[in-house]
Each structure stands twice: as C-alpha cells, then as structure tokens.
C-alpha cells in the first residue's frame, strides 16, 4: 500500500513540473497559433542557465530568478528575430522557424558543453512519512511549479497587460481596433512562454542530471500534457502534466517501467479520438 501511495505522490510531484513545461508550450500556441518546436531546446537551456548560476556560487533556488529573467529576454529576442515576420504566414513557416531555433540552441549547446551529463550537486534533505520517502528537491520543485502557475493566472486575469494578452488570443484584429499593440503583446507572450519552459527546465535540473539533449523528452511530455488538457488552455496543461506524472507513478508497481511510454501514448491517442479538444476544453 505504501508502495502505491509513494508512487502516486512521486507522480503528482513530478507531474506538476511537467505541467509547468506544458503551460509554456500551450500559452504560446493559444495566443499566437505557433507550435514552438524549440520548446525542448529551451527547457535544456534553462537547465544549463541554472548550472551556470549555480557554478557562480548561487543557491539553485535563488538562481531561478535570474533564469526567469534571462528566459523572458531570450524569448522576446527569439520572437523578434525568428517568429515576428512569419506569424501571419502558413503554420508550416513557424514550425520550420522554431525548429531552426531549436537546432541552433542544441548546436551551440553541444559546442559549449558537449553532450556529457551535468549535475547540480547541492544539499538535498530527505523526509520520511510512514515509509514514504521524499526529497526536499521534489517538494520544492512541485511547490515552485504551483506558485509560478498562480503567478501566471494572476497576471492573465488581474492585470491590464494580462487582459490584453487574453484579448489578443481571443481576436487579434478586434484587440488592435481597441488600441492594443498586438505585436508587443505577442512578443511578451512568447517571452513568458519561454520563461516558463526555462523555469521548468531549471526545476528538473535540480532533480536529475541532464545533457543539452535532455529537453526532447520533456518537449514530448509537454505536447502530450497540452493535448490532454486541451491545446491553448493553461489550466488544462497543468492538469495534463499531473495526469502524465500520475500515470508514470501509478502504473510502475504493476508493470515493467519500459511500458509506461506505451500506456501514455495509448491514452494520448484515446483522448484524441474521444475528446478531440482535450479533457478540459480547448483554448479559453
């Protein structure tokens, strides 16, 4: 029993971090219809930014702040250079552009850090509750993911800028007629999406060793979580992430772990067939 509960708890905690990554992806899609193929590479970049700040002597949790700021700036730059011009073009254009960004990040990253594994080696405390063992790193990363999500909601629903983002997502032309500078809003949204991806990468880096290629796995999970929750719906994406984490945790006691991916994708196809707009509805 303890074993199953531990697995479910572990799944929930890691699922929240997956969810945060998925929100970054789904936000960009929801507001500007761009499927960001650089998402995985940006997650990996977040891991390495954290590594650099950690190497400079900053505590990993303190380093999350500069990683977030860098993430936002990086996102705005990527938007201005690679996305802005083609945002009204056919979807294939933005796919190719973000894919190119992904290749550039991975190429530069491989040159700088090679593909060897890196590790954030800091003091981790272990807690034991009735036979369930959990590390402080997992708890903190889950809590951080929840806090960032709340922050995003506050921004989207309680600030003028956030309302403008939602207005642009709803109807870009109407928003422009109301005097909202949509180009700036789109740049800010891309910056926020990138920031969320980098933060989730940084949180993952406090849990597991990573390489510049590690982002791929989490990009895939982000896609699945986004679709599970309904593309373009940030709350849905968070729950999609939690569902993924729970599946990973809760099936493990019963079957070989190699089968987890198979089960995840069978459920994924099932959702596409029976709930094409996701479990929580599409963009809102």
């Amino acid at each position: 029993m303890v074993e199953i509960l531990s697995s479910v708890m572990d799944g929930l905690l890691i699922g929240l971090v997956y969810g945060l990554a998925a929100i970054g992806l789904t936000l960009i899609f929801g507001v500007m219809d761009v499927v960001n193929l650089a998402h995985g590479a940006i997650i990996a970049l977040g891991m390495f930014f954290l590594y650099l700040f950690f190497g400079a002597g900053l505590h990993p949790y303190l380093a999350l702040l500069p990683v977030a700021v860098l993430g936002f700036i990086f996102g705005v730059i990527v938007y201005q250079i690679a996305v802005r011009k083609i945002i009204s073009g056919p979807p294939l254009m933005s796919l190719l552009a973000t894919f190119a960004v992904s290749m550039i990040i991975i190429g530069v990253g491989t040159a700088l850090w090679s593909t060897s594994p890196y590790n954030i080696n800091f003091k981790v405390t272990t807690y034991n509750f009735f036979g369930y063992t959990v590390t402080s790193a997992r708890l903190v990363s889950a809590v951080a993911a929840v806090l960032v999500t709340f922050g995003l909601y506050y921004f989207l629903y309680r600030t003028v800028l956030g309302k403008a983002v939602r207005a642009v997502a709803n109807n870009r032309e109407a928003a422009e007629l109301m005097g909202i500078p949509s180009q700036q809003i789109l740049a800010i949204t891309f910056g926020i999406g990138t920031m969320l991806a980098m933060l989730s990468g940084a949180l993952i880096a406090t849990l597991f060793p990573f390489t510049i290629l590690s982002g791929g796995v989490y990009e895939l999970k982000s896609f699945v979580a986004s679709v599970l929750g309904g593309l373009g719906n940030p709350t849905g994406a968070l729950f999609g992430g939690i569902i993924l984490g729970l599946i990973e945790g809760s099936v493990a006691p019963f079957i070989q772990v190699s089968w987890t991916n198979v089960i995840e994708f069978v459920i994924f196809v099932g959702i596409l067939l029976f709930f094409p707009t996701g479990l929580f509805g599409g963009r809102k």
Partner: protein
Amino acid sequence: MKKKWMFLVLVAIFGMAFAQTVKIGLTVSKTGKFNVESVNQLNGIKLWQKWVNDQGGIAAGGKHYKVELKFYDDESKAQRVQQLYSRLISQDKVDFLISPYSSGLTAKAAIISEQYGKIMVATGAASDSIFKLGYENVFQVYTPASRYLTSTVDMIKAADPSLKKIAVVYEDSKFAKAVATAARDYAKKLGLDVAIFEGYPPSTTDFGPLINKIKASGAGALIGGGHYSDGATFARQLYEQKAPLKMIALLVAPASDEFAQLGDAALGVAAPSQWEPLVKYTQSCGPSPQQFTEMYEKAYGKEPAYRAAGGFAAGLILQKAIMDAGSVDAAKVRAALDNLDITIFFGKIKFSTDPASHGLQLGHEMVQIQWQKKDGKLVKEIVWPLAAKTAKLIYPIH
C-alpha cells in the same frame, strides 16, 4: 643540377620503401550518449600509437611499421557506424580496424568488417552475442557480458551468506540486458531469490517508480545499471530516497572517476571493472600496469579509467599479433590472433577458436571496485577477488 634532382627522387623513393605504415581505422563517439566512455577509449588508443611510434613502430619481419590512426565521429549512432566503417575500408583503405565503444555500435561495425574480411579488435564491447554469429575477423578484448556480474554475485554471497533476496534492475540495452540475464541465472543457481528482474529505457531520468518497487520487494542487494548517465542518476536517487540496500553494484558508472562527483551518494557503491590502475599483473609483453598508468597520467593529467586501458590494450594486442605474424598480411595476423595466449598490463588475453564462439574473450577476468572514504576523500578500492584487493569490502553499506 639534373643529377641533384635524380638524387632527391631516389632518396624519396627509398625513404618511402623504408618508412612503412600500418593504417588503423575506427569511429569514436565524440558526441551523443557514449561521449565520456568513447573519448576515454580513444585516449588509450592514441597513447598506444604514440608509445609504439616512439619505439620506431611495430617491428615485424625485419620491417618497421609506423602506426597511423584514422577516425571519425559516429555521434553514438548505429547508422553512422555502418557508413563510416564502409568508408574506412573502401576509401581510406585502412589495414586493420578497432571497434567503436559499446556493444550495440560494435555489432554494427562487425557486420561491415566481416563483409570486407577486415580484422577488427573489439574493445569497449562486452556482448557475447556478437561472437555467436560465426564471425572470423572480430576479436574481443573485454571480459564478455556473461561473466561481467557473476563475480559480483560471488562477492555478495561471500560477504553475507544469509542474504536471500536480490534485485536485478538494468538498462534496456543490448549489453546491460545480456549482463543482467547472465547474473540472474547465476544468482538463481547459487540459491538466491531474484525478487525483481526489470529493465528501464536508456533515456530514464526519474528512477522514483523503480526505487519504490525495489523497496517494496524487500531485496537486500541491488545489481544492474547500464551506462554512465543512467547509472549515476540511479545511484544518486537511490541515496536520496534512502533505499534500504546492503549492497549496490552497478555497471560502468561507478567505475568512472566522474562518479566521485556524486559525493556521498557514491559511497559504498560497487562496480565490476575490466581493469584498475592498481591491479597486479605480470605482463609478458608491453608496459606494466604501473608504467601504463604513469604514461597515461603524464599525457592526460588524470588516472586512466578501464576504457582507456582497453583502448591501449586493443592496440597492443594488434601489435603483438603483427609481430608474431611477421607481416601485416591479414590471413597471417588472423592466425596469430587465434594463437595468442599472453598476459599484458590489462590482464590475460586469449580468444576462443571454437567456430561457434570465435573471437570471444576467454582469458580476461573482472575485478570489483567499491567507492570508499579514505582521509575524507572518495577513492576507488579493489575489493574482489580477495587476492587482488586493496581494501576490505564495506558491507552492509547502509
């Protein structure tokens, strides 16, 4: 003037006739998941090249052959290996081959070397199955997978005869699976209960679900692992989640010096190793273990890992076979390799000549290392076999 030219041309022709070279081709995983292991191996091969060329090359049949290496980056990818070995043979016209790192990649390279009838010394590849296909040109340096963790089981059994249950958890790769299967069968033969026998995908980073399973199974010892990245991650999480294990023995990762980066999570973790700098072998040719270690430290500024030693050994074995054959003729060198029965700094080397397992390594034996603390610093100690040990095995570790 004309005479001077004639003279120069003659000198050039004679020069070429005397400065013979033997060209050896291979691929290296400079990028991708085998990056750490493969570059270590290449360092060993390059050191051998320098060592032998400094002595004037390989002396065979009254001639001296300078060694020339030709290598490409295979990106740890099987398709690249096949293309590049074909290229090494047909375009670069190499005389002999050394394998890439890992069993999976070597299996691909072996297909090509066999098609073209080129001799390949396989190092960094411990799979048995490559040598069950009737290949005539592939020769294994490492102790094969089937004997990789069996001595670990012996060691645990000797340390704790009352232990009943063990867990075998391995990376789903050709090499790790072969090792794990052989270890499971051997453990069962010794009367141990294998409570879990399970693989994990090579890209696994979250071992939480598996560790919960291991805890629930009540296993007292864990053996398994795969390569570097997964093994290091696994060990770190076993430590963080306080898995109540008396012994942890993982493949490959703990044998690397980088493993010390894990800090306290490394403490007590054991690994089978093909070779360690402290081993005591009395070599019949080539450098002694100590000489090799000094040479390597001088060249690269760090202690050689066993993969580096395996790289040097691959070159040395080829060199010895060419010397025995007295030429670089493929058929003669092949016969010399078949007859080889030597002890070098790396250990005993003898290949199977049975057509059903031709080229399989029969002579070489594993040593067991364990990470221990000495004067507050993490060090690798040899704990098994007892005759070769540098420290007493710590058991139980928790």
